[in-house]
């Protein structure tokens, strides 16, 4: 996919669960080869938005198009990678068996590619280790590998750095950047505002609505604050003692 080609587009997207408007009229355009950050507090609608984009949830109204295909589309899932918020691994199986299984589900049968993906997340020396014996950080890395093993064009990462130590977090973001440089579109959700500056573009979400979009610098300038957290609070209309409006 050419850089800057439209990879994901949502139009007036709504998703309701009874009385709750989890996604409330979102319009977004994401381009190829960039990292997009969905930033917002817990329960703001980030995961629902990602699930709508992946096609795991059906929109109440509006539309999602990924790589030019309206979602949900089962065949297109072969070109999409999704790292869930939970690790989503089979604890009785080894590292290699888990990765090989999810690779098979996505149509990746090349053992060399599977092994290479394992090396990328630095778990090559753990291939026979059962999941139960892995640390939390290792599980997150394997979970990421499962989302990348079929070399997707678009990758959705739902809170990939939760519970991850600073060194690993740095390594993960470094890898995300390399993927984007190679042309992959990444959508990363997080409730940690510090991570915003690692993305090319941010979407600040609150109560299912987009507060603003732009780079970290642009958003800080727009809000007139020093950091993204203060910008988020200000744009949300929240007044605190330390962040006066």
């Amino acid at each position: 996919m050419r850089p800057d080609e439209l990879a994901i587009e949502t139009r007036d997207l709504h998703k309701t669960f009874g009385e709750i408007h989890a996604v409330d009229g979102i319009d977004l355009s994401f381009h190829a080869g960039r990292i997009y950050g969905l930033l917002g507090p817990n329960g703001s609608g980030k995961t629902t938005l990602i699930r709508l984009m992946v096609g795991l949830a059906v929109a109440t109204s509006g539309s999602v198009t990924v790589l030019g295909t309206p979602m949900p589309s089962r065949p297109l899932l072969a070109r999409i990678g999704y790292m869930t918020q939970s690790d989503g691994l089979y604890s009785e199986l080894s590292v290699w068996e888990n990765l090989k299984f999810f690779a098979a589900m996505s149509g990746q049968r090349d053992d060399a590619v599977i092994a290479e993906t394992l090396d990328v997340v630095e778990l090559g020396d753990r291939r026979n280790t059962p999941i139960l014996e892995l640390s939390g950080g290792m599980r997150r890395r394997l979970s990421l590998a499962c989302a990348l093993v079929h070399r997707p064009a678009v990758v959705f990462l739902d809170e990939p750095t939760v519970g991850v130590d600073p060194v690993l977090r740095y390594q993960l973001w470094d890898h995300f950047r390399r993927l984007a440089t190679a042309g992959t579109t990444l959508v990363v959700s997080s409730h940690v505002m510090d991570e915003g500056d690692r993305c090319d573009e941010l979407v600040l979400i609150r109560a299912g609505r987009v507060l603003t979009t732009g780079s970290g610098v642009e958003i800080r300038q727009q809000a007139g604050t020093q950091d993204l957290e203060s910008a988020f609070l200000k744009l949300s209309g929240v007044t605190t003692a330390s962040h006066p409006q």
Partner: protein
Amino acid sequence: MSRRRVAAIARRVMQQVRRDRRSLALLIIAPLAVLALLGFVIRDEKPIETRLGIVALGGPADTRVPQALSAAAAQAGITVVDVGTDAASGRAAVQDGRADVVIVAPAPFAGGSAAIQVITLGEAPADDGARLQVVAGLIERAVSQGAPLTIEHETIYGSPAGDVLNTFAPALIGFFGFFFVFVLTGISFLRERTGGTLERLLATPVRRSEIVVGYSLGFGFFATIQVVLILIFTLGVLTVPGIGPLASFNVGLGITSAGSPALAFVVLFLTAIGAVNLAIFLSTYARTELQVLEFIPIVIVPQALLGGVFWSVNSLPDPLGPIAGVLPMTHAIDGLRAVLVRGAGLSDGSLQLDIAYLVGIAILFVVLAGTTIRREIA
């Protein structure tokens, strides 16, 4: 449908169960252990201890009946205890634990029209039932001493004096073939739903049908092993010779099968596949592993009660009879009885109906299971 993906799912399920020793034991060892225990209890049940009291309301003037009962009891090796001369003292003896059962012979007892009163404790119906049988035997013996009247029982299949297990085993193996696979699949698929792996799986191009078929094949593999082992254990017997102080003992129930074990396998396998897919379907409605177990009294127990494990389906009261007719367990047990007891073959109409029903139920549950695996998980 992608055969590669189906095979990958089936292989993964097999790897998971193989690594989970406790689940493997539940699937393979538990049914055999329970069958062995039931076989031991049913086959080697000892006669219940009965201390008999006889109250002759006719007093010393009419001792004919009490004497006949005492003589019959002595012949049967039953202890007769003194419980007084009226019904109240007989009742007190049962209440105090001096007697297990008291027969109150009316006065005068002509041997035909008068009723004999039998007093038991009423605490354990099974014990009372066994003792009433003893009393009935004694009365029959006492009454018929002049002109013995016996009932000669003949059966078309098997032998009336044969092993009770021969007729009971089809119900037991049908029940266990269903039960253990249901529990294990239900919990396993619930973990898939709650652990995030189903969500990840559904974010790949896999079809719902591939997941259901893959699961059916994976658990079907273990169901096959379980079914084969259950049948070998039920039909075979191996005598382990005594060593030193250890007496020799038998492994396996060794019941006689009138029909083809291969056909019994087909019936049992279809039952297990139905159980796998029913469990996948019902796991949608559970949030925790405990809630899967809560399906046992809803799904398993009624089938055991109505399906012919304990009571004949034909003796069920009207509203329950038709319900029993739609339960998979009823057809599984009926089919297994047809094969193992009657020796029915594939040309048997009743067996054809049972097999067709089990195939239909398995397909229905496969479809239902598929509908519960949606890409949208709200």
